[in-house]
């Protein structure tokens, strides 16, 4: 399976730009098609939103509630991923065990799986009549239609992005440094905390940013598994979807906000990479 190459290493491996005269229209025109496809809809979105009362729409109670639900759930989902995904990524980077390639495939699967499939799968597992749902309800835990369900859907879909990045970060740490630390008498936890985490720090942070951005944008799994209730499970992408049919101005305002946050996250990830160079 092809391993994700971080943007940084990709950029490093590229030769210096070739002389300008060799890039003709044959390259520029197809490139423009792509660029227009990416840029035009975003531009149209921003212009249309600016035309309506952006500030009034963004301050509407339903918009603010969606913003709050989104911030709370995506942050919680990131915390879960950091706490449980970091050790998993470390194991994958440093240990050999049977069925490891299968585990790696399992972890990469949610990245390519349609989120609607993720949503149905979560419902079949944790729904009231799902595989473990009835046992959970004996413990008094009901997951569907709760904020916890939103966090689960987001973690399912976004966690793999972080685990992937962290695994590569840990793999890139020089094994000799680890050996040196072990000779100095570091135990497994000290090695992890004082050598691995700082050295893989940029990769971890980068992965965390991508993971958070993906969690913030989660839609399909959420609407299927967590439903749509203002202030409880209605995140910004759900509010955008409902808003298109209900109040376009709110949908536009929230969309622009999501675009802005995504740009912010991507530029900070980029800046991190450059710092590492």
């Amino acid at each position, binding site marked *: 399976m092809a391993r994700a190459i971080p943007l940084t290493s990709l950029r490093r491996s590229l030769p210096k730009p070739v002389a300008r005269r060799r890039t003709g229209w044959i390259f520029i025109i197809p490139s423009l098609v792509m660029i227009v496809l990416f840029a035009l809809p975003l531009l149209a979105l921003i212009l249309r939103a600016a035309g309506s009362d952006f500030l009034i729409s963004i301050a509407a109670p339903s918009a603010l509630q969606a913003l709050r639900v989104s911030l709370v759930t995506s942050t919680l989902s990131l915390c879960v991923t950091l706490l449980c995904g970091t050790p998993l990524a470390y194991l994958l980077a440093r240990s050999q065990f049977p069925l490891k390639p299968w585990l790696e495939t399992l972890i990469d699967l949610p990245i390519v799986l349609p989120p609607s499939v993720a949503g149905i799968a979560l*419902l079949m597992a944790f*729904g*009231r*009549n799902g595989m473990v749902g009835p046992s959970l309800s004996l413990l008094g835990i009901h997951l*569907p*239609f709760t904020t916890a369900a939103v966090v689960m859907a987001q973690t399912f879909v976004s966690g793999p992005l972080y685990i992937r990045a962290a695994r590569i970060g840990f793999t890139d740490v020089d094994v000799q440094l680890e050996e040196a630390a072990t000779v100095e008498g570091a135990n497994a936890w000290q090695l992890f905390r004082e050598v691995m985490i700082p050295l893989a720090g940029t990769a971890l942070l980068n992965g965390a940013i991508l993971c958070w951005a993906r969690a913030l944008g989660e839609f399909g799994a959420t*609407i299927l598994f*967590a*439903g*749509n*209730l*203002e202030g*409880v*499970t209605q995140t910004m992408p759900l509010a955008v*979807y*409902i808003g*298109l*049919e*209900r109040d376009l101005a709110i949908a536009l305002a929230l969309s622009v906000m999501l675009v802005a946050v995504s740009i912010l996250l991507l530029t900070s990830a980029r800046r991190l990479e450059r710092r590492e160079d």
Partner: protein
Amino acid sequence: MAACTLAATPAPTAVPPTQAPPTQVPTPASTASPEARTLNVFAAASLTGAFGEIAKAFEAANLGVTVTNNFAGSQALRTQIEQGAPADVFASADHKNMDTMVTENLVQDGKYQDFANNKLVVILPPKNPANIQTLQDLAKPGMKLILEDASVPAGNYSRQILANMSKDSTYGSDFSDKVLKNVVSNETDVKQVVSKVDLGEGDAGIVYVTDAQAAPDLKSIEIPDNFNVIAKYPLAVVAKSSNSELAAAFVQYVLSPEGQAVLQKWGFAPAK
């Protein structure tokens, strides 16, 4: 899903007006013209079963015609048509969405016709986990009610029914508030509510009687007529239809005894 449809939809202006059927074919509904044509019918999600059957019958009666049904919440369909989706016929579950389209000049000649009536019912999962026996039980704290979003016709009707019941002293003026506190999700169309109640994720839902009839393993509680809302379903040819004669023939078919018989088989009442 709606977003995909919108993105993939060519602007209606891209259809050259010269594509109108040639005049030597006077009756598009005639079985003598085997010319291949496609009719895009945008119909409320609650019409899924009935219009699926009507489409097949209409195809059988009109050789060469393919009917493509697009089922979703009426509000979603209206949005899609507003954004230029290539619809020929629009069948809404309420007058509100149809009237909006009329004011936007999206309905041919601004005319539409009611073709069926529907009303609502409370559905329960087969095992009835919350032990809902009467309509009063919907106000039991902690029961999980699944409704449609208020922008969906059925969601709007459900809220009207709850408001009607609150005016009756048997239920009390806070009945609607209590019931709405139990809502765990506002779904985007009525079929989503049926599925989630069927899966047992909700303790109850409010849907059309036709949906309850199409899902026979669900239990249901009738809503008395004095509280219930009669949902009137209007049907129209879309103004920008590139196939308006065929669309008009489809509308006539729905209103014909054959079309009406199919609708009644699926639980709809005749209009008026």
